[in-house]
């Protein structure tokens, strides 16, 4: 739990929250975040991301568990004493105050005099590259500019933790990329521990040092982007992050590191037991990403018939129907002359490596 000069560590310790209406929004979440890290909270709509963020900021008192910032348990502190900066999804700029007053608001609350406030606001506006907007009202700014102001306003109080709730959701693609780079740059400069809520997996994987994947209020996995992408611990993570083919099968034999699975599609393959040990004869779901499949010439893989081929720029995605009637996608890099595949051609497919096929116990 080392604290960097800019940011303090944040521990979410067994936090559970049930709304008065009875909805269980988050359940037993544990996160141990080092000072200065960027963390992405990734999950589908309604999985409890905003709830968790509001608990950390202090707007909601959790039903159970503790929030620890640095060395302090902050559960008893109101939001205005937690030194947690938050950028809301809709920016929540004060519509009747100028941009400069918005940015200086937190300093005014701390009793900073007007001249220093304006100087600091100007410095922050330069940091977010909006130095000429100080006297305007928020409604005279574009969405992306308002976003930057919201960020500057949150940074003005020199928070030890910065929380961003779907900060880029309302921006178009190019602006979003700019802002992602911008936030990452600011975060590197200031070293503030940052938590970004998103349901955009690309955003999570590209921006964060570590990603926490949530589903139905539970933490599915907390790890580096490559952990989450390449070594998913649950079927949910494997299918939610990136795309994946789900192929049912039966375990033929298994130990801790490898399992031989007989796919319903017709072949025996070696897969990595991802969700703990597998029992022989049990049904499993094997997940293989489209880019981790290859065409094979011999009799090793499983057979299928090529349906549609979609050229997607740098890659080509082929849809293949397997013997049991299910569809499998395979994507190939387009290097020079890619083998032209006729609609209806008979092919055989196999995973690139055993570690790239993940076997999970079937939930049914």
């Amino acid at each position, binding site marked *: 739990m080392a604290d960097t000069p800019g940011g303090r560590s944040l521990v979410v310790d067994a936090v559970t929250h049930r709304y008065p209406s009875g909805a269980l929004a988050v359940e037993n979440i544990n996160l141990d975040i080092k000072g200065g890290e960027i963390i992405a909270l990734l999950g589908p709509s309604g999985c409890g991301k905003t709830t968790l963020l509001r608990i950390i900021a202090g707007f909601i008192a959790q039903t159970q568990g503790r929030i620890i910032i640095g060395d302090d348990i902050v559960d008893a502190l109101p939001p205005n004493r937690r030194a947690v900066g938050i950028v*809301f999804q809709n920016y*929540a700029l004060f519509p009747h105050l100028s941009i400069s007053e918005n940015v200086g608001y937190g300093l005014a609350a701390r009793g900073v005099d007007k001249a220093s406030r304006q100087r600091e606001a100007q410095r922050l506006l330069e940091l977010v590259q909006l130095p000429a907007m100080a006297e305007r009202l928020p409604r005279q700014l574009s969405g992306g500019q308002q976003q930057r102001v919201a960020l500057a306003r949150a940074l003005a109080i020199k928070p030890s933790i910065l929380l961003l709730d779907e900060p880029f959701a309302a921006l178009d693609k190019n602006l979003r990329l700019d802002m992602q780079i911008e936030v990452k740059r600011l975060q590197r400069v200031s070293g503030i521990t940052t938590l970004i809520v998103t349901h955009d997996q690309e955003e999570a994987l590209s921006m964060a040092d570590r990603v926490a994947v949530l589903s139905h209020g539970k933490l599915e996995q907390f790890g580096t982007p490559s952990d989450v992408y390449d070594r998913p611990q649950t079927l949910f993570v494997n299918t939610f992050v990136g795309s994946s083919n789900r192929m049912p099968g039966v375990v033929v034999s298994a130990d801790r590191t490898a399992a031989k699975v007989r796919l319903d599609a017709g072949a025996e393959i070696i897969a990595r037991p991802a969700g703990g040990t597998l029992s022989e004869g049990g049904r499993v779901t094997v997940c293989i990403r489209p880019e981790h499949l290859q065409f094979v010439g011999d009799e090793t893989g499983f057979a299928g018939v090529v349906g549609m081929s979609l050229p997607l720029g740098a890659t080509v995605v082929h849809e293949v129907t397997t013997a049991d009637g299910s569809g499998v996608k395979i994507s190939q890099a387009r290097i020079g002359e890619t083998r032209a595949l006729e609609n209806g051609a008979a092919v055989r497919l196999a995973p690139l490596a055993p570690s790239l096929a993940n076997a999970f116990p079937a939930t049914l």
Partner: protein
Amino acid sequence: MGTAPASRDVTSYGMGLAAPLALFFLVFFVAPLLQLLWLSLHNDTAGLHWGVGQYLHFLTDPFSLSVLGSTLLLGAEVTAVCLVLGFPIAWLYQRVGPRLQTVIILIVLLPLLTSVVVRTFAWIVILGRQGIINATLQSLGIIDTPLKLLYTQFGVVIALAQVQMPLMTLPLITALGRIDPNLDDASCSLGAGSWRTFFRIVLPLSLPGVIAGCTLTYAAAITAFITQSLIGGGQMLFMPMYLYQQASTLQNWPFASAISIIFLLAVLAVVSVFTTLGRMSRGYGGA
């Protein structure tokens, strides 16, 4: 209004649809008002000699001016009481669950659902010499002789404030409801306490509602003939009663007309002050 079907645009429909109401106003509001103005410009009760004598009489007569003054003051007091009592209710409304919201709305609307005469007599029962307040205070031994509550400025203000409260509370509820709740949270997370959040964020952003509520309450309070006269009694004279006496009892129609016109202008002046104040504040029309 376009008569040729080809040249008909959307705006001409709007004008056409507004015509019945416009006609209604013309016949029942503008025409009587003009008649009133015409009547007020006569120097004698019979209405034979033209002149501005009635206006001069009013504006040079200390008694008339004091009636006007006390009426405008009464409006200001009632508005202030309504604002101070109504704001917390409207604020509370935005922060409770849907069930309590229904209860609050019901309580707020209740004065509108009972007849003004009934409400006023209820206040007489409460404020009277042997009324509920005096009886309670006496039985508790807090006072020996009954307090004079009825037929006082205090009594009139309190009764009017209760009657006009919905006119203040409803616009406030609407205005507060339009403020994004995230602004509260944003202010708080930036380190501001609840008082700073209230005075810097909530109050400025609710100004449109405050202005609307004050205008409605003020206009209603100074023209509330029944409550003013029943609670105020014979000693306290306000403009509506003064007007009524001149017109009905003394049959001095030109003077009564002049009083009406002056009263109307005074009210318009006060209302335009409210509106200008609102427009000057930057919160107006924001959010």
